[in-house]
């Protein structure tokens, strides 16, 4: 078992980083009831951990007996029927799903499937009416129509179900949904908190952590706890006992992008652009999201630029990332950015050095 899963706190009492949020959540469900919730925050900050711990608090140990189901749905949409396949994780009283998996048909998931799930209320042993918990992941990726459909569902079935929504950026969740939920911001843990967790894991695993080593892992992690723990485990596999100046292996794709950045800065020509295209394709084939490639590339380039160029480059990065979102093929836009950068940089070099 990976350490990330092994040391994931199972209950709200044992949460280490977001103690205040955990405390509030506990108060929130103390009366066995809660409003709809919307968790938002950067990845690796602990949203999912908090949600699972909260679920356990509400439902007791039965929340952990989950089964994965791959269900097919037939949805009657007027003149045609739509087949949808969706993976759900469910226990007796909760269902977890990512409606955005259905792509542009996500509206039907919200309108039909979630509605149907929300309607059926479980009955407990004493014959009292209970409620069901629905966890929806990645609501920020839902289409606008689907989000519109969700809002009335949330009100209408509020007696029999509670929705827990989870997303990275609440900017992309419509106002209407936000105003119907209790919003909980989960911030990325600070470096000190990450160090604390790493030291805790080190102690549990019986490792000798040289002083300053945990701090370096934390610094490299970009404030993502998941990444910090993963890279600690990688270091453990690579070399143990730790030495205090042991290299912390960076992600290989990040290294690859920094290579690309060096290439671009060395030579600005169509030939180089062609080589870079090959490398970007390599990254895309390996399922690195294009947004991440562009962001990382910008990060690497910014390190080596003059202040006046930085403004210009970051403007174009924002411009092409937006176009990438609207367009179909990511490679065009990444390449356009690279070409733009080359032209700007060349003009800058000529202006400076003649």
């Amino acid at each position, binding site marked *: 078992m990976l350490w990330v899963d092994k040391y994931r706190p199972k209950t709200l009492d044992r949460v280490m980083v977001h103690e205040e949020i955990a405390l509030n959540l506990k*108060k929130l469900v103390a009366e066995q009831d809660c409003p709809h919730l919307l968790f938002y925050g950067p990845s690796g900050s602990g949203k999912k951990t908090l949600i699972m711990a909260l679920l356990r608090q509400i439902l007791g140990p039965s929340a952990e007996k989950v089964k994965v189901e791959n269900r097919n749905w037939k949805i009657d949409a007027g003149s045609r029927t739509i087949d949808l396949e969706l993976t759900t994780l469910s226990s007796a009283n909760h269902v977890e799903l990512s409606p955005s998996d259905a792509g542009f048909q996500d509206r039907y998931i919200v309108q039909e499937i979630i509605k149907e799930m929300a309607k059926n209320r479980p009955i*407990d042993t004493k014959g009292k009416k209970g409620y069901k918990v629905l966890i929806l992941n990645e609501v920020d990726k839902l289409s606008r129509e689907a989000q519109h459909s969700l809002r009335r569902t949330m009100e209408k079935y509020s007696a029999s179900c509670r929705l827990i929504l989870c997303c990275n950026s609440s900017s992309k969740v419509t106002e209407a949904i936000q105003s119907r939920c209790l919003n909980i911001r989960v911030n990325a843990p600070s470096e000190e908190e990450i160090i604390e967790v790493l030291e805790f894991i080190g102690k549990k695993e019986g490792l000798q952590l040289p002083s300053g080593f945990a701090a370096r892992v934390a610094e490299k992690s970009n404030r993502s706890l998941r990444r910090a723990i993963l890279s600690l485990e990688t270091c453990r596999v690579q070399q143990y006992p730790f030495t205090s100046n042991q290299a912390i292996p960076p992600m290989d794709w990040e290294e690859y992008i920094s290579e690309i950045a060096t290439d671009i800065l060395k030579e600005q020509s169509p030939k180089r652009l062609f080589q870079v295209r090959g490398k970007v394709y390599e990254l895309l084939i390996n399922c690195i999201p294009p947004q991440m490639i562009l962001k990382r590339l910008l990060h690497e380039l910014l390190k080596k630029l003059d202040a006046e160029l*930085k*403004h210009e480059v970051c403007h174009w990065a924002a411009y092409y990332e937006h176009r990438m979102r609207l367009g179909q093929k990511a490679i065009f836009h990444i390449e356009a950015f690279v070409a733009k950068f080359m032209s*700007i940089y060349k003009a800058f070099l000529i202006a400076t050095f003649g």
Partner: protein
Amino acid sequence: MAPVLQSSQPWVEKYRPKQVKDVAHQDEVVRVLTNTLETANCPHMLFYGPPGTGKTTTALAIAHQLFGPELYKSRVLELNASDDRGINVVRTKIKDFAAVAVGSGQRQGGYPCPPFKIIILDEADSMTEDAQNALRRTMETYSKVTRFFFICNYISRIIEPLASRCAKFRFKPLSEEIMSSRILHICDQEGLNLDSEALSTLSSISQGDLRRAITYLQGAARLFGSSISSKDLISVSGVIPREVVEAFYATCKSGNFDLANKEVNNVIAEGYPVSQMIFQLFNVVVEADDVPDEQKARICKSLAEADKRLVDGADEYLQLLDVASNTMRALCNMPQEFSFET
């Protein structure tokens, strides 16, 4: 074992006015509708206005008051965005319902029960244009037996032919006093303790949206118990603390790109929503006294651009960085045009 449900109704539903005369702050609408109740006749209606001003509440209340609980089911059809409302539904479901004849106006059990049915189309601005077009003739043909109530946020998204067939009512954002009095009423009923500072914070962060105010209040009450301070309200509302926005603005003013980049990273890591950040930054910029108008205009232009891109789904970090860079260039009087672009 399934958790047992206690009195779990959201306060928004619990304190939804049941009668038209209880609807706060919308005097003209209330007057017209009270008249309707007496004469038992009304035109097609179109309610529009910002969220949380009582549009749906009014429509539901008038329907209930006209027909009473017994006839309500057979006389009122309520459709909203959570139901499929494509052109097919308009052609079949709505048309079928609209075509059914009803008995003559006999008062039943103290309700006026006028001889028509009501179709409430909530969130009508999310209907497609085709679906709206398909409604035009239906509205006229069956106007003897059916009245349509459209509810929407943006009247500009209702096609002109539909809008011209309706009596339009604009719902105003609630004023601070009305809002405070409703909030205090709820606090009374729920046994909450709210000081005057928290009350004014609540009115300012909810911006005339009573539903939002009540949701925040309930959220804060659940989290922090019966005495609520203004800080608690800010933490449940998702508003970014003023210090954070001001620190961001200050780094933009400093003219150092790397500092700004670091600040942007920080804002993203703290998980603050960037759309909210842009909105609050806008307020800071507009209110700033020491910034000339031209610079303000330049900043606002870049904020608008970033907002549009965020709606399109662009990456938050890059957009905020772009905003920071633009703001910095405007504030520090750096040239707006790029010097190396060919």
